[in-house]
C-alpha cells in the first residue's frame, strides 16, 4: 500500500462524515478500520489482564502485548524489544526522562537545551526541573522563517550541558528539523539527546539507531493508533540510569514492607495494569504503517503543505506563519481582521476541521508577536482537491469579514 487512491475508505470516520475535510492531524489522526477492529476484537474475544496469568486468555494477552513491544522496536529501528517501554503518551514519556533520568544527573549550574519550537510537553518538564535544580534552561531561537540556528546550538552546548531535547517536526509551524545533525553536534560534546517524535513517527522514515537518539518518544494517537498509549525508547547505555517515577504492581523483583527491589528497564517503567487493549491497537497501527512507504508519505505531506502554502498565500491579508526551509504537512497562518478562532469556526461549519490557538507552543508564537494561529495539518488521506475546497472557503470567509 503506497498511498493508494482508496486510502480514505480505510477510515470509517469518512464514511460517517462524507463531507469532512479533516485537517487536524497534528492534534490527532483518524483511526483506520483495522485499528478499531483490533481493539474491538481484543475486548470481545481475547480480553484478560497480563502479568503472568497462566490461563489461556491471559497467556495469549501477555504474548500479544510483548509481540507489540518487539514490533515497535523493529519499526523504529531499535535493536531489542527491551529498549522500548510503553507509556500513556509523548507527554508521559518526556516527563519520565525528566524526573526519572535527568533529575538525578542535573546539578546546580548545569544546563538543558531546547529549541524555541518546543511543544509545551517538551518544554515545561525541563523548565520545572531546571528551576528545582537551579540549572539553566537554554533556548535555541528560530529565525523569522522558523528555522533553528545550528550555530546557536553549537554555541549553547558546553561542558555543563546535560541534555538536548528537540522536536522532529514542529506541530505549530511545521518546521522539519535537521535532527540527525543536531544529535551529531550534541554527541560531539558528549551531550545526550531526547527526540520528541510525536509529529513524525509513522509517516517518516525512522531508525533510532542510525539517527543516534538517546531517548525517543511518541504517541500512538498521532499515528492512527488509540488514545492513551505512547512509547519511550531508551538507548541501552542510558537504561540503567532511568529510574521509575511511578510505583506499583508488575515492576518489582521483590517487595517487603521495609524495601523494594525493582525490575530493569523497560519493566520498571510499567507500574500498574498497562493499557493492554491500547497496546494491541498500537500494534495494529504499526502494522498499518508498515504497509506504507514512509519516503512516499513524507513526500506526500510536504507536497500537500507546499500546495496549501502557495494557495493560501494568494489570499490578500492572509499571512503564513513560519516559512521554514524544510517542513512536514503543517501550515499555520493568520488572516487580517479575523481572529483564528472565528476563522476555525467558519471553516468548521463548512465541514473543514482545523485548529486555532497557540498549539501548545505559546512562547514560540509570543516571540513572533502572535497569540494564536489557524493551523491545517495533513495526513495520508488528504488531497490537493480538499485544499482547493479550503481555499474557496477561506476566500468566502475573507469576503464576509471585510
Amino acid at each position, binding site marked *: 500500500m503506497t498511498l493508494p487512491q482508496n486510502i480514505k475508505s480505510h477510515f470509517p470516520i469518512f464514511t460517517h462524515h462524507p463531507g469532512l475535510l479533516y485537517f487536524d492531524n497534528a492534534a490527532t489522526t483518524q483511526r483506520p478500520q483495522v485499528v478499531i477492529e483490533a481493539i474491538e476484537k481484543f475486548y470481545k474475544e481475547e480480553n484478560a489482564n497480563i502479568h503472568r496469568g497462566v490461563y489461556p486468555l491471559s497467556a495469549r494477552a501477555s504474548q500479544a502485548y510483548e509481540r507489540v513491544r518487539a514490533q515497535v522496536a523493529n519499526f523504529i529501528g531499535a535493536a531489542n524489544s527491551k529498549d522500548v517501554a510503553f507509556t500513556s503518551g509523548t507527554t508521559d514519556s518526556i516527563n519520565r526522562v525528566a524526573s526519572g533520568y535527568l533529575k538525578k544527573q542535573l546539578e546546580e549550574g548545569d544546563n538543558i537545551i531546547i529549541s524555541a519550537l518546543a511543544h509545551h510537553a517538551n518544554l515545561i518538564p525541563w523548565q520545572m526541573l531546571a528551576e528545582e535544580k537551579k540549572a539553566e534552561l537554554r533556548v535555541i531561537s528560530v529565525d523569522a522563517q522558523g528555522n533553528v540556528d545550528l550555530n546557536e546550538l553549537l554555541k549553547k552546548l558546553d561542558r555543563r550541558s546535560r541534555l538536548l531535547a528537540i522536536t522532529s517536526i514542529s506541530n505549530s509551524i511545521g518546521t522539519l528539523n535537521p535532527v540527525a545533525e543536531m544529535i551529531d553536534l550534541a554527541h560531539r560534546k558528549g551531550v545526550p539527546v531526547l527526540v520528541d517524535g510525536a509529529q513524525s513517527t509513522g509517516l517518516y522514515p525512522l531508525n533510532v539507531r542510525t539517527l543516534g537518539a538517546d531517548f525517543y518518544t511518541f504517541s500512538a494517537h498521532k499515528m492512527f493508533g488509540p488514545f492513551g498509549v505512547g512509547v519511550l525508547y531508551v538507548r541501552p547505555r542510558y537504561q540503567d540510569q532511568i529510574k521509575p517515577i511511578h510505583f506499583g504492581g508488575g515492576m518489582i523483583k521483590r517487595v517487603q514492607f521495609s524495601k523494594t527491589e525493582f525490575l530493569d528497564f523497560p519493566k520498571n517503567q510499567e507500574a500498574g495494569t498497562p493499557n493492554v487493549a491500547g497496546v494491541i491497537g498500537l500494534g495494529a497501527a504499526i502494522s498499518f504503517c508498515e504497509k506504507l512507504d514512509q519516503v512516499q508519505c513524507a513526500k506526500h505531506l510536504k507536497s500537500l503543505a507546499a500546495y496549501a502554502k502557495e494557495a493560501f498565500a494568494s489570499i490578500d491579508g492572509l499571512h503564513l506563519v513560519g516559512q521554514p526551509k524544510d517542513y512536514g504537512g503543517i501550515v499555520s497562518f493568520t488572516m487580517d481582521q479575523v*481572529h*483564528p*478562532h*472565528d476563522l476555525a*469556526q*467558519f471553516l468548521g*461549519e*463548512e465541514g473543514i476541521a482545523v485548529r*486555532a*490557538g*497557540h498549539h501548545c507552543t*505559546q512562547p514560540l*508564537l509570543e516571540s513572533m508577536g502572535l*497569540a*494564536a494561529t489557524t493551523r491545517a495539518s495533513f495526513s495520508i488521506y488528504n488531497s490537493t482537491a480538499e485544499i482547493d475546497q479550503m481555499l474557496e472557503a477561506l476566500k468566502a470567509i475573507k469576503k*464576509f469579514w471585510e
Partner: protein
Amino acid sequence: MNPRLKNLYKEVILMHNAKPFHFQKMENEEGMIEANNPLCGDRFQFFLQEENGRITAAHFHGFGCAISKASASILTQKLEGKTRLEAQSLCAGFLGFIEGENREAISDQEIEAFAAVDEFPARKDCAILGWKAINDYLSK
C-alpha cells in the same frame, strides 16, 4: 452564509468586534483585571476607575476572538455608572444567561445576541471571558 453561523455572528457582535467600546490601554496598573483563556491564548485587560464605590469609567484592551471581544466591549459599556453591587449582579446575570438560566427575564438585545452560543458550547468560554474575570474581581 450558513444560518447557524449567522445566528452566532449577529450584527451586534460583528459591530462590537469591529468597533469595540473604550478599547484602549490605560495607565492605572493597580486597577487592572486580567481575563485570560489559557486554552486559546486569548487575553484581555480591563481597567476600571472607581469613585465612592461606583465605576466611573471602564476600558479594556487585548486580543481575542469576535465573540470574546464583542462580549468584553458590551460588558465595558454596561459597567460604566454601576455600583459594585450592581455590576456584580450584572455579571452574575450574564453568566447565568449563558448557562441557559432566566432566558425570559432578560430583554436586553445585546445580551440576547449571545444566546446562540447554546449551539456552539465550545464558544461559551469566549462569551463569558470578561464577565467571569470581572465577577471574580468584584466578589473578592
